Protein backbone atom coordinates (compact mmCIF):
# COMPACT_ATOMS: atom_id res chain seq x y z
CA UNK A 1 0.00 0.00 0.00
CA UNK A 2 1.25 3.60 0.18
CA UNK A 3 5.04 3.54 0.11
CA UNK A 4 5.13 0.01 1.40
CA UNK A 5 8.64 -1.40 1.32
CA UNK A 6 7.43 -4.49 -0.52
CA UNK A 7 6.24 -4.26 -4.12
CA UNK A 8 2.68 -5.54 -4.52
CA UNK A 9 2.52 -9.15 -5.77
CA UNK A 10 1.64 -9.99 -9.38
CA UNK A 11 -1.76 -11.29 -8.35
CA UNK A 12 -2.61 -7.85 -7.01
CA UNK A 13 -1.34 -6.03 -10.08
CA UNK A 14 -3.23 -8.32 -12.46
CA UNK A 15 -6.50 -8.17 -10.56
CA UNK A 16 -6.15 -4.42 -10.49
CA UNK A 17 -5.55 -4.24 -14.23
CA UNK A 18 -8.46 -6.52 -15.13
CA UNK A 19 -10.89 -4.96 -12.68
CA UNK A 20 -10.14 -1.37 -13.62
CA UNK A 21 -10.24 -2.15 -17.35
CA UNK A 22 -13.66 -3.80 -17.08
CA UNK A 23 -14.95 -0.99 -14.93
CA UNK A 24 -13.67 1.64 -17.35
CA UNK A 25 -15.45 -0.15 -20.21
CA UNK A 26 -18.69 -0.22 -18.22
CA UNK A 27 -18.41 3.46 -17.35
CA UNK A 28 -17.36 4.58 -20.83
CA UNK A 29 -19.82 2.69 -23.02
CA UNK A 30 -22.77 5.05 -22.44
CA UNK A 31 -20.46 8.03 -22.79
CA UNK A 32 -19.25 6.68 -26.13
CA UNK A 33 -22.82 6.04 -27.26
CA UNK A 34 -23.77 9.57 -26.32
CA UNK A 35 -20.88 11.17 -28.17
CA UNK A 36 -20.89 8.97 -31.28
CA UNK A 37 -24.68 9.01 -31.73
CA UNK A 38 -24.78 12.77 -31.49
CA UNK A 39 -22.66 12.89 -34.65
CA UNK A 40 -24.76 10.42 -36.67
CA UNK A 41 -27.41 11.12 -39.32
CA UNK A 42 -30.95 10.14 -38.33
CA UNK A 43 -30.89 6.92 -40.42
CA UNK A 44 -28.03 5.57 -38.30
CA UNK A 45 -29.99 5.84 -35.06
CA UNK A 46 -33.35 4.59 -36.31
CA UNK A 47 -31.95 1.43 -37.90
CA UNK A 48 -29.91 -1.30 -36.25
CA UNK A 49 -27.31 0.05 -33.83
CA UNK A 50 -23.91 0.74 -35.34
CA UNK A 51 -20.70 1.38 -33.46
CA UNK A 52 -19.38 3.82 -36.04
CA UNK A 53 -21.39 6.52 -37.81
CA UNK A 54 -21.90 5.95 -41.57
CA UNK A 55 -20.94 9.58 -41.93
CA UNK A 56 -20.04 12.23 -39.41
CA UNK A 57 -22.42 15.16 -39.22
CA UNK A 58 -22.91 18.08 -36.88
CA UNK A 59 -26.49 18.48 -38.12
CA UNK A 60 -27.98 17.26 -34.79
CA UNK A 61 -26.19 20.04 -32.93
CA UNK A 62 -27.88 22.60 -35.19
CA UNK A 63 -31.30 20.97 -35.18
CA UNK A 64 -31.61 20.59 -31.39
CA UNK A 65 -32.23 24.30 -30.99
CA UNK A 66 -35.21 24.36 -33.35
CA UNK A 67 -36.89 20.99 -32.63
CA UNK A 68 -37.69 22.10 -29.09
CA UNK A 69 -37.06 25.53 -27.49
CA UNK A 70 -33.86 24.20 -25.94
CA UNK A 71 -32.37 27.66 -25.41
CA UNK A 72 -35.35 28.66 -23.26
CA UNK A 73 -35.03 25.51 -21.17
CA UNK A 74 -31.34 26.15 -20.84
CA UNK A 75 -31.90 29.69 -19.58
CA UNK A 76 -34.55 28.46 -17.14
CA UNK A 77 -32.26 25.76 -15.78
CA UNK A 78 -29.38 28.20 -15.52
CA UNK A 79 -31.44 30.74 -13.57
CA UNK A 80 -33.01 28.15 -11.28
CA UNK A 81 -29.82 26.21 -10.55
CA UNK A 82 -27.69 29.35 -10.26
CA UNK A 83 -30.02 31.12 -7.86
CA UNK A 84 -30.59 27.98 -5.80
CA UNK A 85 -26.83 27.48 -5.52
CA UNK A 86 -26.06 31.02 -4.39
CA UNK A 87 -28.87 31.07 -1.82
CA UNK A 88 -28.08 27.60 -0.55
CA UNK A 89 -24.40 28.40 -0.05
CA UNK A 90 -25.10 31.68 1.78
CA UNK A 91 -27.67 30.09 4.08
CA UNK A 92 -25.43 27.08 4.71
CA UNK A 93 -22.42 29.29 5.54
CA UNK A 94 -24.40 31.17 8.20
CA UNK A 95 -25.85 28.02 9.73
CA UNK A 96 -22.58 26.12 9.69
CA UNK A 97 -20.79 29.07 11.28
CA UNK A 98 -23.34 29.17 14.08
CA UNK A 99 -22.99 25.47 14.78
CA UNK A 100 -19.21 25.41 14.46
CA UNK A 101 -18.40 28.50 16.53
CA UNK A 102 -21.21 29.02 19.01
CA UNK A 103 -22.68 27.12 21.89
CA UNK A 104 -26.42 27.44 22.09
CA UNK A 105 -29.41 25.56 23.28
CA UNK A 106 -30.97 23.25 20.70
CA UNK A 107 -27.78 22.82 18.69
CA UNK A 108 -28.03 19.05 18.61
CA UNK A 109 -31.72 19.13 17.82
CA UNK A 110 -31.01 21.46 14.92
CA UNK A 111 -28.26 19.38 13.35
CA UNK A 112 -30.15 16.12 13.76
CA UNK A 113 -33.38 17.58 12.36
CA UNK A 114 -31.67 19.16 9.38
CA UNK A 115 -29.74 16.01 8.57
CA UNK A 116 -32.75 13.77 8.91
CA UNK A 117 -34.69 15.78 6.32
CA UNK A 118 -32.08 14.48 3.90
CA UNK A 119 -33.50 10.99 4.27
CA UNK A 120 -37.11 11.94 3.59
CA UNK A 121 -38.48 10.54 0.37
CA UNK A 122 -39.14 13.41 -2.06
CA UNK A 123 -42.52 11.92 -2.86
CA UNK A 124 -43.59 12.48 0.76
CA UNK A 125 -43.57 16.25 0.52
CA UNK A 126 -44.18 16.60 -3.20
CA UNK A 127 -47.96 16.44 -2.80
CA UNK A 128 -48.24 18.77 0.23
CA UNK A 129 -45.75 21.22 -1.25
CA UNK A 130 -47.68 21.21 -4.51
CA UNK A 131 -50.89 22.04 -2.61
CA UNK A 132 -49.12 24.61 -0.41
CA UNK A 133 -47.71 26.48 -3.38
CA UNK A 134 -51.07 26.44 -5.15
CA UNK A 135 -52.83 27.69 -2.00
CA UNK A 136 -50.22 30.36 -1.22
CA UNK A 137 -50.65 31.54 -4.80
CA UNK A 138 -54.43 31.70 -4.44
CA UNK A 139 -54.30 33.47 -1.09
CA UNK A 140 -51.50 36.00 -1.62
CA UNK A 141 -50.97 36.24 -5.35
CA UNK A 142 -47.33 35.17 -4.96
CA UNK A 143 -46.92 32.67 -7.74
CA UNK A 144 -44.79 29.84 -6.40
CA UNK A 145 -46.42 27.04 -8.33
CA UNK A 146 -45.24 27.00 -11.93
CA UNK A 147 -42.74 29.79 -11.32
CA UNK A 148 -38.98 29.75 -11.16
CA UNK A 149 -39.16 31.16 -7.63
CA UNK A 150 -40.97 28.10 -6.32
CA UNK A 151 -38.45 25.79 -7.92
CA UNK A 152 -35.50 27.81 -6.60
CA UNK A 153 -36.96 27.72 -3.10
CA UNK A 154 -37.48 23.98 -3.30
CA UNK A 155 -34.10 23.12 -4.77
CA UNK A 156 -32.10 25.22 -2.36
CA UNK A 157 -33.46 23.23 0.55
CA UNK A 158 -32.51 19.98 -1.16
CA UNK A 159 -28.82 20.73 -1.01
CA UNK A 160 -28.99 22.58 2.31
CA UNK A 161 -28.68 19.70 4.83
CA UNK A 162 -25.65 18.13 3.20
CA UNK A 163 -24.06 21.55 2.60
CA UNK A 164 -24.44 22.58 6.24
CA UNK A 165 -23.07 19.27 7.42
CA UNK A 166 -20.04 19.45 5.16
CA UNK A 167 -19.32 23.09 6.01
CA UNK A 168 -19.48 22.42 9.76
CA UNK A 169 -16.65 19.95 9.30
CA UNK A 170 -14.77 22.42 7.17
CA UNK A 171 -15.20 25.35 9.55
CA UNK A 172 -14.17 23.14 12.47
CA UNK A 173 -10.87 22.56 10.71
CA UNK A 174 -10.18 26.31 10.56
CA UNK A 175 -8.26 27.14 13.77
CA UNK A 176 -10.38 29.08 16.24
CA UNK A 177 -7.45 31.29 17.17
CA UNK A 178 -7.75 32.95 13.77
CA UNK A 179 -11.26 34.27 14.22
CA UNK A 180 -10.72 35.00 17.89
CA UNK A 181 -7.80 37.20 16.86
CA UNK A 182 -10.08 38.93 14.37
CA UNK A 183 -12.69 39.48 17.11
CA UNK A 184 -10.05 41.03 19.33
CA UNK A 185 -8.96 43.26 16.46
CA UNK A 186 -12.44 44.72 16.45
CA UNK A 187 -14.21 42.71 13.78
CA UNK A 188 -17.77 41.76 14.70
CA UNK A 189 -18.69 38.07 14.57
CA UNK A 190 -19.82 38.54 10.97
CA UNK A 191 -16.58 40.32 10.14
CA UNK A 192 -14.68 37.36 11.56
CA UNK A 193 -16.81 35.02 9.49
CA UNK A 194 -16.31 36.82 6.18
CA UNK A 195 -12.73 38.02 6.63
CA UNK A 196 -11.25 34.93 8.26
CA UNK A 197 -13.36 31.80 8.30
CA UNK A 198 -14.84 31.99 4.80
CA UNK A 199 -11.53 32.72 3.02
CA UNK A 200 -9.91 29.84 4.90
CA UNK A 201 -12.72 27.48 3.92
CA UNK A 202 -12.97 28.37 0.22
CA UNK A 203 -12.35 24.78 -0.97
CA UNK A 204 -15.22 23.54 1.18
CA UNK A 205 -17.50 26.30 -0.03
CA UNK A 206 -16.63 25.56 -3.65
CA UNK A 207 -17.37 21.89 -3.07
CA UNK A 208 -20.73 22.72 -1.54
CA UNK A 209 -21.57 25.06 -4.43
CA UNK A 210 -20.77 22.36 -6.98
CA UNK A 211 -22.95 19.92 -5.10
CA UNK A 212 -25.84 22.38 -4.87
CA UNK A 213 -25.65 23.24 -8.55
CA UNK A 214 -25.58 19.59 -9.59
CA UNK A 215 -28.54 18.81 -7.37
CA UNK A 216 -30.65 21.57 -8.89
CA UNK A 217 -29.50 20.96 -12.46
CA UNK A 218 -30.38 17.27 -12.40
CA UNK A 219 -33.65 17.17 -10.47
CA UNK A 220 -36.61 15.66 -12.33
CA UNK A 221 -39.49 14.97 -9.93
CA UNK A 222 -40.37 18.50 -8.79
CA UNK A 223 -39.45 19.96 -12.18
CA UNK A 224 -41.98 17.73 -13.86
CA UNK A 225 -44.80 18.82 -11.56
CA UNK A 226 -43.97 22.43 -10.75
CA UNK A 227 -43.11 23.98 -14.10
CA UNK A 228 -45.24 25.15 -17.00
CA UNK A 229 -44.45 25.88 -20.65
CA UNK A 230 -42.56 29.08 -19.92
CA UNK A 231 -40.61 27.89 -16.88
CA UNK A 232 -39.80 24.35 -18.05
CA UNK A 233 -36.28 23.26 -17.22
CA UNK A 234 -33.97 20.97 -19.17
CA UNK A 235 -34.84 17.98 -17.01
CA UNK A 236 -38.38 18.00 -18.40
CA UNK A 237 -37.76 19.76 -21.70
CA UNK A 238 -35.41 17.10 -23.02
CA UNK A 239 -38.30 14.68 -23.26
CA UNK A 240 -39.70 16.83 -26.08
CA UNK A 241 -37.47 15.18 -28.69
CA UNK A 242 -39.48 12.00 -28.70
CA UNK A 243 -42.38 12.65 -31.04
CA UNK A 244 -44.81 9.90 -31.83
CA UNK A 245 -43.46 8.88 -35.22
CA UNK A 246 -39.74 9.38 -34.93
CA UNK A 247 -37.53 9.54 -31.92
CA UNK A 248 -34.64 11.80 -32.84
CA UNK A 249 -32.04 9.86 -30.90
CA UNK A 250 -29.16 11.69 -32.54
CA UNK A 251 -30.62 15.01 -31.43
CA UNK A 252 -31.43 13.69 -27.96
CA UNK A 253 -27.83 12.58 -27.56
CA UNK A 254 -26.53 15.90 -28.87
CA UNK A 255 -28.79 17.82 -26.51
CA UNK A 256 -27.82 15.58 -23.60
CA UNK A 257 -24.18 16.25 -24.31
CA UNK A 258 -24.68 20.01 -24.55
CA UNK A 259 -26.61 19.95 -21.27
CA UNK A 260 -24.05 17.76 -19.51
CA UNK A 261 -20.83 19.44 -20.55
CA UNK A 262 -21.07 22.47 -18.22
CA UNK A 263 -21.75 20.37 -15.10
CA UNK A 264 -19.34 17.56 -15.88
CA UNK A 265 -16.54 19.98 -16.76
CA UNK A 266 -17.19 22.02 -13.62
CA UNK A 267 -17.35 18.90 -11.50
CA UNK A 268 -14.14 17.40 -12.86
CA UNK A 269 -12.29 20.69 -12.48
CA UNK A 270 -13.42 21.07 -8.88
CA UNK A 271 -13.59 17.42 -7.81
CA UNK A 272 -10.42 17.65 -5.72
CA UNK A 273 -12.20 20.20 -3.55
CA UNK A 274 -15.16 17.89 -3.19
CA UNK A 275 -12.93 15.01 -2.11
CA UNK A 276 -11.14 17.34 0.31
CA UNK A 277 -14.48 18.61 1.60
CA UNK A 278 -15.74 15.08 2.12
CA UNK A 279 -12.55 14.14 3.91
CA UNK A 280 -12.86 17.10 6.24
CA UNK A 281 -16.60 17.05 6.77
CA UNK A 282 -18.28 13.79 6.05
CA UNK A 283 -15.99 10.96 6.88
CA UNK A 284 -14.04 12.38 9.76
Amino acid at each position, binding site marked *: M*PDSPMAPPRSFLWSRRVFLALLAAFVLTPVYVMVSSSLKPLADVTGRFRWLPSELTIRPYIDIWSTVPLADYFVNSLIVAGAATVCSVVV*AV*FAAYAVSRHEFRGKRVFTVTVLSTQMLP*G*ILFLLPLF*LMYVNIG*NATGIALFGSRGGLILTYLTFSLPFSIWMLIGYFDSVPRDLDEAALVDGCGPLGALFRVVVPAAVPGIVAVAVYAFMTAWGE*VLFASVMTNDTTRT*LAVGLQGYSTLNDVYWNQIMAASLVVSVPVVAGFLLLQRYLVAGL*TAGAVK
Partner: protein
Amino acid sequence: MTTTALKEPVRETSPGAARAPRRRPGRIRRLSLPYLLLLPALLLELLVHLVPMAIGIVMSFKELTQFYIRDWGTAPWSGLDNYRVSVDFDAPVGKALLQSFGVTVGFTLLSVALCWLIGTAAAVFMQDTFRGRGLLRALFLVPYALPVYTAVITWVFMFQHDNGLVNHVLHDQLHLTGEPSFWLIGDNSFYALLTVSVWKGWPFAFLIVTAGLQNIPRELYEAAALDGAGTWQQIRRITLPSLRPVNQVLVLVLFLWTFNDFNTPFVLFGRAAPEAADLISVHIYQASFVTWNFGTGSAMSVLLLLFLLVVTGGYLLLTSRGRRTSDA
Protein backbone atom coordinates in the same frame (compact mmCIF):
# COMPACT_ATOMS: atom_id res chain seq x y z
CA MET B 1 -6.46 33.80 23.48
CA THR B 2 -4.35 35.69 25.99
CA THR B 3 -6.06 38.98 25.31
CA THR B 4 -9.51 37.59 26.03
CA ALA B 5 -8.22 36.00 29.21
CA LEU B 6 -6.92 39.40 30.29
CA LYS B 7 -10.10 41.19 29.39
CA GLU B 8 -12.52 38.90 31.19
CA PRO B 9 -11.46 39.61 34.78
CA VAL B 10 -11.41 43.33 34.11
CA ARG B 11 -15.01 43.20 33.04
CA GLU B 12 -16.06 41.03 35.98
CA THR B 13 -14.34 43.18 38.58
CA SER B 14 -15.72 46.49 37.43
CA PRO B 15 -19.34 46.48 38.46
CA GLY B 16 -21.15 49.76 38.17
CA ALA B 17 -24.64 51.08 37.62
CA ALA B 18 -23.56 52.75 34.42
CA ARG B 19 -22.04 49.62 32.91
CA ALA B 20 -24.82 47.16 33.54
CA PRO B 21 -27.36 48.45 31.05
CA ARG B 22 -24.72 48.65 28.37
CA ARG B 23 -23.60 45.11 28.96
CA ARG B 24 -26.98 43.49 28.73
CA PRO B 25 -27.78 44.27 25.10
CA GLY B 26 -24.35 43.00 24.17
CA ARG B 27 -24.95 39.74 25.95
CA ILE B 28 -28.38 39.36 24.42
CA ARG B 29 -26.90 39.96 21.01
CA ARG B 30 -24.22 37.42 21.66
CA LEU B 31 -26.76 34.88 22.84
CA SER B 32 -29.16 35.42 19.97
CA LEU B 33 -26.53 35.64 17.27
CA PRO B 34 -26.39 31.89 16.64
CA TYR B 35 -30.16 31.80 16.36
CA LEU B 36 -30.14 34.70 13.90
CA LEU B 37 -27.56 32.89 11.82
CA LEU B 38 -29.65 29.74 11.86
CA LEU B 39 -32.91 31.51 11.12
CA PRO B 40 -32.78 31.38 7.29
CA ALA B 41 -31.90 27.69 7.29
CA LEU B 42 -34.58 26.95 9.88
CA LEU B 43 -37.31 28.87 8.04
CA LEU B 44 -36.48 27.16 4.75
CA GLU B 45 -36.42 23.72 6.32
CA LEU B 46 -39.74 24.46 7.98
CA LEU B 47 -41.37 25.78 4.82
CA VAL B 48 -40.17 23.14 2.38
CA HIS B 49 -39.72 20.05 4.54
CA LEU B 50 -41.31 20.07 7.95
CA VAL B 51 -44.60 21.90 7.33
CA PRO B 52 -45.29 19.91 4.14
CA MET B 53 -44.52 16.74 6.06
CA ALA B 54 -47.05 17.70 8.74
CA ILE B 55 -49.59 18.61 6.06
CA GLY B 56 -48.91 15.28 4.37
CA ILE B 57 -49.71 13.46 7.59
CA VAL B 58 -52.95 15.45 7.96
CA MET B 59 -53.83 14.81 4.32
CA SER B 60 -53.48 11.09 4.81
CA PHE B 61 -56.53 11.21 7.10
CA LYS B 62 -58.66 13.06 4.55
CA GLU B 63 -60.67 12.08 1.56
CA LEU B 64 -58.65 14.27 -0.75
CA THR B 65 -59.77 13.76 -4.33
CA GLN B 66 -59.58 16.18 -7.24
CA PHE B 67 -62.73 18.01 -6.10
CA TYR B 68 -61.01 19.35 -2.98
CA ILE B 69 -57.59 20.27 -4.33
CA ARG B 70 -58.34 23.98 -4.70
CA ASP B 71 -59.10 24.17 -1.01
CA TRP B 72 -57.83 21.03 0.61
CA GLY B 73 -58.82 22.12 4.11
CA THR B 74 -62.49 21.50 3.30
CA ALA B 75 -61.97 17.89 2.28
CA PRO B 76 -63.91 15.58 4.58
CA TRP B 77 -62.09 13.56 7.21
CA SER B 78 -61.95 9.90 6.42
CA GLY B 79 -60.29 8.48 9.51
CA LEU B 80 -58.09 5.53 8.70
CA ASP B 81 -59.76 4.77 5.36
CA ASN B 82 -56.72 5.73 3.28
CA TYR B 83 -54.51 3.49 5.37
CA ARG B 84 -57.01 0.66 5.22
CA VAL B 85 -57.08 0.87 1.43
CA SER B 86 -53.28 1.01 1.25
CA VAL B 87 -52.66 -2.10 3.35
CA ASP B 88 -55.61 -4.18 2.21
CA PHE B 89 -53.43 -6.64 0.37
CA ASP B 90 -56.37 -8.59 -1.07
CA ALA B 91 -57.72 -5.57 -2.92
CA PRO B 92 -55.98 -4.27 -6.08
CA VAL B 93 -54.56 -1.06 -4.54
CA GLY B 94 -52.95 -2.76 -1.55
CA LYS B 95 -51.77 -5.69 -3.61
CA ALA B 96 -50.02 -3.37 -6.08
CA LEU B 97 -48.43 -1.44 -3.21
CA LEU B 98 -47.12 -4.62 -1.61
CA GLN B 99 -45.73 -5.80 -4.95
CA SER B 100 -44.05 -2.42 -5.48
CA PHE B 101 -42.61 -2.52 -1.96
CA GLY B 102 -41.15 -5.98 -2.54
CA VAL B 103 -39.58 -4.91 -5.82
CA THR B 104 -38.11 -1.81 -4.17
CA VAL B 105 -36.57 -3.77 -1.29
CA GLY B 106 -35.00 -6.32 -3.63
CA PHE B 107 -33.76 -3.67 -6.00
CA THR B 108 -32.32 -1.52 -3.20
CA LEU B 109 -30.46 -4.37 -1.52
CA LEU B 110 -28.86 -5.49 -4.80
CA SER B 111 -28.03 -1.99 -5.95
CA VAL B 112 -26.48 -0.90 -2.64
CA ALA B 113 -24.44 -4.10 -2.38
CA LEU B 114 -23.09 -3.73 -5.93
CA CYS B 115 -22.41 0.01 -5.61
CA TRP B 116 -20.55 -0.54 -2.35
CA LEU B 117 -18.57 -3.48 -3.69
CA ILE B 118 -17.49 -1.80 -6.92
CA GLY B 119 -16.81 1.53 -5.25
CA THR B 120 -14.70 0.02 -2.47
CA ALA B 121 -12.77 -2.25 -4.82
CA ALA B 122 -12.00 0.64 -7.17
CA ALA B 123 -10.96 2.93 -4.30
CA VAL B 124 -8.68 0.31 -2.75
CA PHE B 125 -7.12 -0.59 -6.10
CA MET B 126 -6.48 3.07 -6.80
CA GLN B 127 -4.93 3.88 -3.43
CA ASP B 128 -1.41 3.43 -4.81
CA THR B 129 -0.26 5.85 -7.43
CA PHE B 130 0.21 4.42 -10.91
CA ARG B 131 0.39 5.89 -14.37
CA GLY B 132 -2.97 7.24 -15.52
CA ARG B 133 -4.55 7.17 -12.06
CA GLY B 134 -5.66 10.79 -12.14
CA LEU B 135 -7.27 10.38 -15.55
CA LEU B 136 -9.01 7.17 -14.51
CA ARG B 137 -10.33 8.78 -11.34
CA ALA B 138 -11.80 11.68 -13.31
CA LEU B 139 -13.33 9.21 -15.75
CA PHE B 140 -14.91 7.18 -12.96
CA LEU B 141 -16.61 10.26 -11.60
CA VAL B 142 -18.33 11.05 -14.90
CA PRO B 143 -21.48 8.98 -14.21
CA TYR B 144 -21.87 10.77 -10.89
CA ALA B 145 -21.34 14.19 -12.45
CA LEU B 146 -23.73 13.69 -15.37
CA PRO B 147 -27.22 15.05 -14.79
CA VAL B 148 -29.43 12.05 -14.00
CA TYR B 149 -31.77 12.56 -16.91
CA THR B 150 -29.08 12.74 -19.60
CA ALA B 151 -27.40 9.61 -18.26
CA VAL B 152 -30.66 7.70 -18.03
CA ILE B 153 -31.85 8.87 -21.46
CA THR B 154 -28.64 7.47 -22.93
CA TRP B 155 -29.37 4.13 -21.27
CA VAL B 156 -32.91 4.25 -22.64
CA PHE B 157 -31.40 4.54 -26.11
CA MET B 158 -29.02 1.66 -25.40
CA PHE B 159 -31.88 -0.55 -24.20
CA GLN B 160 -34.06 0.06 -27.28
CA HIS B 161 -35.40 -3.13 -28.84
CA ASP B 162 -34.57 -2.44 -32.51
CA ASN B 163 -31.82 0.13 -32.53
CA GLY B 164 -30.19 -0.22 -29.11
CA LEU B 165 -26.62 -1.17 -28.32
CA VAL B 166 -27.47 -3.86 -25.76
CA ASN B 167 -29.47 -6.02 -28.15
CA HIS B 168 -26.95 -5.38 -30.91
CA VAL B 169 -24.14 -6.74 -28.76
CA LEU B 170 -26.04 -9.61 -27.08
CA HIS B 171 -28.03 -10.74 -30.11
CA ASP B 172 -26.31 -9.62 -33.32
CA GLN B 173 -22.70 -9.83 -32.23
CA LEU B 174 -22.50 -12.44 -29.46
CA HIS B 175 -25.61 -14.47 -30.45
CA LEU B 176 -26.43 -15.04 -26.78
CA THR B 177 -30.19 -14.62 -27.20
CA GLY B 178 -32.37 -16.27 -29.82
CA GLU B 179 -34.52 -13.19 -30.18
CA PRO B 180 -33.73 -9.57 -29.40
CA SER B 181 -35.08 -8.94 -25.88
CA PHE B 182 -37.29 -6.19 -24.58
CA TRP B 183 -35.48 -4.39 -21.79
CA LEU B 184 -37.79 -1.59 -20.78
CA ILE B 185 -40.96 -3.66 -20.47
CA GLY B 186 -41.58 -7.02 -18.82
CA ASP B 187 -39.35 -8.83 -16.37
CA ASN B 188 -36.07 -7.67 -17.92
CA SER B 189 -36.84 -4.12 -16.85
CA PHE B 190 -35.68 -5.01 -13.33
CA TYR B 191 -32.17 -5.75 -14.58
CA ALA B 192 -32.18 -2.70 -16.82
CA LEU B 193 -33.05 -0.53 -13.82
CA LEU B 194 -30.44 -2.23 -11.65
CA THR B 195 -27.73 -1.71 -14.27
CA VAL B 196 -28.49 1.98 -14.65
CA SER B 197 -28.73 2.48 -10.89
CA VAL B 198 -25.37 0.81 -10.24
CA TRP B 199 -23.73 2.65 -13.14
CA LYS B 200 -24.95 5.93 -11.70
CA GLY B 201 -24.45 5.14 -8.01
CA TRP B 202 -21.12 3.37 -7.54
CA PRO B 203 -18.95 6.50 -8.09
CA PHE B 204 -20.44 8.00 -4.93
CA ALA B 205 -19.25 5.00 -2.92
CA PHE B 206 -15.89 5.32 -4.68
CA LEU B 207 -15.68 9.00 -3.73
CA ILE B 208 -16.52 8.43 -0.06
CA VAL B 209 -14.25 5.42 0.36
CA THR B 210 -11.41 7.29 -1.38
CA ALA B 211 -11.85 10.10 1.12
CA GLY B 212 -12.01 7.57 3.97
CA LEU B 213 -8.80 5.87 2.88
CA GLN B 214 -6.91 9.13 3.26
CA ASN B 215 -7.63 9.11 6.98
CA ILE B 216 -5.97 5.75 7.63
CA PRO B 217 -2.62 6.41 9.32
CA ARG B 218 0.34 5.34 7.22
CA GLU B 219 2.13 3.86 10.22
CA LEU B 220 -0.41 1.05 10.32
CA TYR B 221 0.69 -0.12 6.87
CA GLU B 222 4.35 0.32 7.69
CA ALA B 223 4.00 -1.70 10.87
CA ALA B 224 2.09 -4.42 9.02
CA ALA B 225 4.71 -4.52 6.27
CA LEU B 226 7.45 -4.92 8.90
CA ASP B 227 5.47 -7.82 10.35
CA GLY B 228 5.59 -9.41 6.92
CA ALA B 229 2.00 -8.83 5.82
CA GLY B 230 1.63 -8.79 2.04
CA THR B 231 -0.57 -6.44 0.02
CA TRP B 232 -3.69 -8.63 0.16
CA GLN B 233 -3.28 -9.16 3.89
CA GLN B 234 -2.85 -5.44 4.48
CA ILE B 235 -6.10 -4.81 2.63
CA ARG B 236 -7.91 -7.45 4.67
CA ARG B 237 -6.38 -6.65 8.08
CA ILE B 238 -5.98 -2.86 7.90
CA THR B 239 -7.81 -1.19 5.05
CA LEU B 240 -11.20 -2.87 5.34
CA PRO B 241 -11.46 -2.74 9.17
CA SER B 242 -10.37 0.92 9.19
CA LEU B 243 -13.14 1.74 6.72
CA ARG B 244 -15.85 0.43 9.03
CA PRO B 245 -17.05 3.77 10.41
CA VAL B 246 -17.11 5.24 6.90
CA ASN B 247 -19.00 2.23 5.58
CA GLN B 248 -21.62 2.48 8.30
CA VAL B 249 -22.63 5.94 7.09
CA LEU B 250 -22.08 5.17 3.42
CA VAL B 251 -24.32 2.11 3.36
CA LEU B 252 -27.12 3.96 5.15
CA VAL B 253 -26.94 6.94 2.79
CA LEU B 254 -26.81 4.68 -0.27
CA PHE B 255 -29.76 2.71 1.06
CA LEU B 256 -31.93 5.79 1.63
CA TRP B 257 -31.04 7.38 -1.71
CA THR B 258 -31.62 4.20 -3.68
CA PHE B 259 -34.82 3.34 -1.86
CA ASN B 260 -36.25 6.82 -2.45
CA ASP B 261 -34.93 7.18 -5.98
CA PHE B 262 -37.47 8.66 -8.30
CA ASN B 263 -35.45 10.20 -11.10
CA THR B 264 -33.92 7.02 -12.50
CA PRO B 265 -37.08 4.91 -12.89
CA PHE B 266 -39.13 7.94 -13.95
CA VAL B 267 -36.83 8.82 -16.85
CA LEU B 268 -36.19 5.17 -17.69
CA PHE B 269 -39.81 4.05 -17.92
CA GLY B 270 -41.92 7.19 -17.95
CA ARG B 271 -45.00 7.61 -15.83
CA ALA B 272 -46.04 3.97 -15.73
CA ALA B 273 -43.23 1.66 -14.76
CA PRO B 274 -43.45 -2.05 -15.66
CA GLU B 275 -44.54 -4.20 -12.74
CA ALA B 276 -41.11 -5.82 -12.33
CA ALA B 277 -39.43 -2.42 -11.85
CA ASP B 278 -42.23 -0.50 -10.14
CA LEU B 279 -40.26 1.37 -7.47
CA ILE B 280 -42.24 2.76 -4.57
CA SER B 281 -41.65 6.46 -5.31
CA VAL B 282 -42.95 6.19 -8.84
CA HIS B 283 -45.77 3.98 -7.63
CA ILE B 284 -46.96 6.60 -5.16
CA TYR B 285 -46.54 9.36 -7.75
CA GLN B 286 -48.64 7.33 -10.15
CA ALA B 287 -51.25 6.59 -7.48
CA SER B 288 -51.51 10.31 -6.62
CA PHE B 289 -51.17 12.28 -9.82
CA VAL B 290 -52.76 9.93 -12.30
CA THR B 291 -55.81 9.16 -10.21
CA TRP B 292 -55.70 12.53 -8.40
CA ASN B 293 -56.30 10.74 -5.15
CA PHE B 294 -53.93 12.63 -2.88
CA GLY B 295 -55.32 11.16 0.35
CA THR B 296 -54.33 7.60 -0.47
CA GLY B 297 -51.05 8.77 -1.93
CA SER B 298 -50.27 10.58 1.32
CA ALA B 299 -51.15 7.55 3.42
CA MET B 300 -48.73 5.49 1.32
CA SER B 301 -46.03 8.16 1.77
CA VAL B 302 -46.52 8.15 5.54
CA LEU B 303 -46.25 4.35 5.63
CA LEU B 304 -43.06 4.63 3.59
CA LEU B 305 -41.68 7.18 6.03
CA LEU B 306 -42.50 4.96 9.01
CA PHE B 307 -40.74 2.04 7.34
CA LEU B 308 -37.63 4.15 6.66
CA LEU B 309 -37.63 5.44 10.25
CA VAL B 310 -37.79 1.92 11.66
CA VAL B 311 -35.06 0.66 9.33
CA THR B 312 -32.79 3.64 9.97
CA GLY B 313 -33.32 3.47 13.72
CA GLY B 314 -32.71 -0.25 13.80
CA TYR B 315 -29.63 0.12 11.64
CA LEU B 316 -28.14 2.86 13.81
CA LEU B 317 -28.86 0.86 16.95
CA LEU B 318 -27.29 -2.29 15.54
CA THR B 319 -24.20 -0.61 14.13
CA SER B 320 -23.53 1.48 17.23
CA ARG B 321 -23.85 -1.60 19.41
CA GLY B 322 -21.52 -3.45 17.04
CA ARG B 323 -19.05 -0.62 17.33
CA ARG B 324 -19.19 -0.65 21.11
CA THR B 325 -18.58 -4.38 21.41
CA SER B 326 -15.76 -4.26 18.90
CA ASP B 327 -14.14 -1.51 20.94
CA ALA B 328 -14.44 -3.47 24.17
